[in-house]
């Protein structure tokens, strides 16, 4: 509370200081000039009075001088007792000898032995008057008068009165200014008080009262206008805020709903995945067992067909032999199919063990194998040197065998067969490819290339089970990579694959380390 008072009264203090200061200056100037004027006037009047006194007395003493009567002159001078500030006086004869003298107190300074120059002289706080007594143009003598002019007393007295008046004036000015300045400071202090209260309470509905019609009143009015504006704005802001908060809560609700749905969805996906996985496993188990179980009857068919040929080489007509060889071929092919299916199934089940594999070396060995199996073919094979990949060696070999085997197969009818194994960088990933200039394929079937049992060529044209590319795709996918193909009928085909995608790179890296360990 004290602090508040101090703050609010600072304006009052200033105003009071201004008023009192001005009053003091005015008082000083007024009293000072009055004193100066009065002292000057007093001095002039007083000296004139002394001169007159001297002249009068001198005139009175003329007969005494004329008729040489110092006694009368002394009596005349003695009249000066009535003027207490006259200390001494004398009349000198025409030659300067003392004719008669007067001293107020015997102890006083004696009159000078000779008269001074005619005129009035102020010496310190004394005035000396020398007045030549002239009668009919003749100098009869000199009248001398010495008096205390009391100017200092007068000034002192004036100063006392002035001090008293100044104090009185200041007191009156103080009392009056307390009332006057209120009319100036009160409206300002009111505005300040309202401003402070608003700052403390943030209540913009308050208004400064209008206490005057001057600029301060105008200030208060402007302040109120400002407050109204602030109030309106703050209302609008509060409304906007409420609106936003409402929207936010709606959005949060929606978000929660989405999260709930998402979790539901995830739950469902997990369920489905689990169902799917078990179904897949069942299917694979089924597939495996079927394939496995199919082998026995197939072996029977194959064996008995061969036994027929072996046991009855002549008894059977040529036609039967032809049929038997067809049966044997079909059985062999079916065996191959079952083998491939089993392999595919194994790929799915086998655990993935990654380590660094020299892809160039691997491809070289595979090509070497192909050349051995088919020594009649002349195929130009280009393998880029030093390709190292991080992969499961067994699975990768299967994939490369299939890819190169395909290339080898589909370039059989090409005049200058050429196979290329290489790699290129595509941003952060390395893309490997196997390219040939063989039969190629129609791009509109590109999406069917990697499905099991999908074939784009007739069996008699290019033999195959239709499982190879499915196997390759399975290997690539198990490594977390991608595979795609590019081709044109009669102009060759190119198979591109990656063994890891950069998106999974972060999680892929530690896996690599694990694989090596």
């Amino acid at each position, binding site marked *: 509370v004290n602090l508040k008072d101090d703050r609010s009264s600072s304006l009052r203090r200033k105003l009071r200081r201004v008023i009192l200061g001005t009053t003091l200056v005015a008082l000083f100037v007024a009293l000072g000039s009055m004193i100066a004027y009065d002292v000057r006037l007093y001095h002039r009047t007083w000296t004139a009075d002394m001169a007159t006194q001297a002249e009068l007395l001198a005139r*009175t003493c003329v007969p005494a001088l004329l*008729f*040489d009567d110092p006694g*009368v002159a002394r009596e005349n001078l003695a009249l000066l007792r009535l003027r207490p500030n006259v200390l001494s006086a004398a009349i000198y*004869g025409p030659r300067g000898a003392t004719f008669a003298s007067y001293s107020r107190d015997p102890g006083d300074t004696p009159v000078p032995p000779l008269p001074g120059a005619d005129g009035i002289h102020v010496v310190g706080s004394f005035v000396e008057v020398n007045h030549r007594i002239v009668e*009919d143009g003749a*100098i009869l003598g000199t009248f001398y008068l010495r008096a205390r002019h009391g100017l200092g007393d007068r000034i002192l007295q004036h100063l006392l009165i002035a001090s008293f008046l100044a104090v009185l004036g200041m007191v009156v000015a103080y009392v009056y200014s307390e009332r006057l300045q209120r009319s100036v400071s009160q409206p300002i202090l009111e505005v300040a008080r309202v401003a402070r209260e608003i700052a403390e309470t943030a209540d913009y509905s308050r208004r400064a009262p209008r206490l005057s019609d001057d600029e301060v009143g105008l200030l208060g009015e402007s302040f109120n206008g400002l407050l109204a504006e602030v109030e309106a704005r703050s209302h609008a802001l509060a409304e906007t805020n409420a609106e936003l908060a409402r929207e936010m809560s709606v959005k949060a609700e929606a978000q929660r709903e989405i999260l709930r749905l998402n979790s539901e969805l995830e739950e469902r996906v997990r369920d489905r995945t689990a169902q799917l996985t078990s179904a897949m496993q069942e299917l694979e188990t089924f597939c495996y067992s079927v394939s496995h179980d199919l082998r026995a009857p197939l072996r029977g068919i194959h064996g008995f067909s061969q036994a027929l040929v072996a046991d009855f080489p002549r008894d059977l007509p040529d036609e039967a032999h032809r049929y038997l060889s067809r049966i044997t071929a079909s059985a062999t092919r079916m065996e191959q199919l079952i083998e491939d299916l089993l392999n595919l199934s194994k790929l799915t089940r086998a655990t993935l063990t990654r380590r660094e594999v020299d892809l160039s070396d691997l491809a070289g060995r595979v090509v070497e194998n192909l050349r051995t199996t088919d020594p009649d073919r002349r195929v130009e094979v280009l393998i880029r040197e030093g390709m190292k990949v991080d992969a499961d060696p067994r699975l990768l070999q299967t994939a490369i065998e299939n890819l190169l085997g395909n290339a080898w197969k589909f370039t059989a009818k090409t005049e200058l067969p050429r196979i290329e194994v290489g790699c290129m960088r595509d941003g952060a990933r390395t893309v490997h490819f196997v390219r040939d200039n063989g039969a190629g394929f129609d791009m509109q079937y590109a999406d069917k290339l990697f499905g099991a049992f999908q074939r784009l060529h007739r069996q008699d044209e290019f033999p195959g089970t239709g499982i190879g590319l499915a196997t390759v795709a399975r290997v690539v996918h198990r490594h977390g990579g991608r595979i795609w193909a590019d081709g044109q009928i009669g102009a060759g085909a190119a198979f591109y694959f990656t063994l890891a995608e950069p998106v999974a790179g972060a999680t892929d890296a530690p896996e690599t380390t694990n694989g090596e360990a």
Partner: protein
Amino acid sequence: MTRVRSRRREAALAALLLLAATRGRSAETIRSSEHAVKAAYLLHFSAYVEWPTSTFQGADSPLVIGVLGDDDLARDLSEISADRRVAGHPLVVRRLLAEDPTSGLQILFIGKSLERDLSELLRKSRAPGLLAVTDSDGALELGSTINFVTAEERVRFDISLRSAESLDLRLSSRLLAVARNVIPG
């Protein structure tokens, strides 16, 4: 030119007055200067006396001082009153004999030498507007208005106001203030 000359005269007069005053103050020279002092006093009296209006015909009519029985004084007076004016009237000094008429005079001085005939002279010359100045003991009782006396080795004078009033003369109080004795009217 005239102003310069009159200044010079004033200066000369002042010097003379000075001389008279100092002589008056000195005991040794009092006898020799007595004539001069009395002459000066006689001259000064004129400034403190108011004559009846009928005495002067005009503003610049002369103020005539007649001297009986004291030639030294008459000489001195002539010297110091030359070219002087009192209240605008030029001063004229006349040396008179006992039988000379006193009409037309404003001041009449009767010297000590005529002490024996003083009563007769005073009676004969008595007329309104004529100031009689004498130099003899008991002259005031005989009708004189101002009478010189020597007291404490100074030249003083007594005044008879009764005589002055009867002669229609008004004496200034300032003159009375310096008189030794004043016989009231």
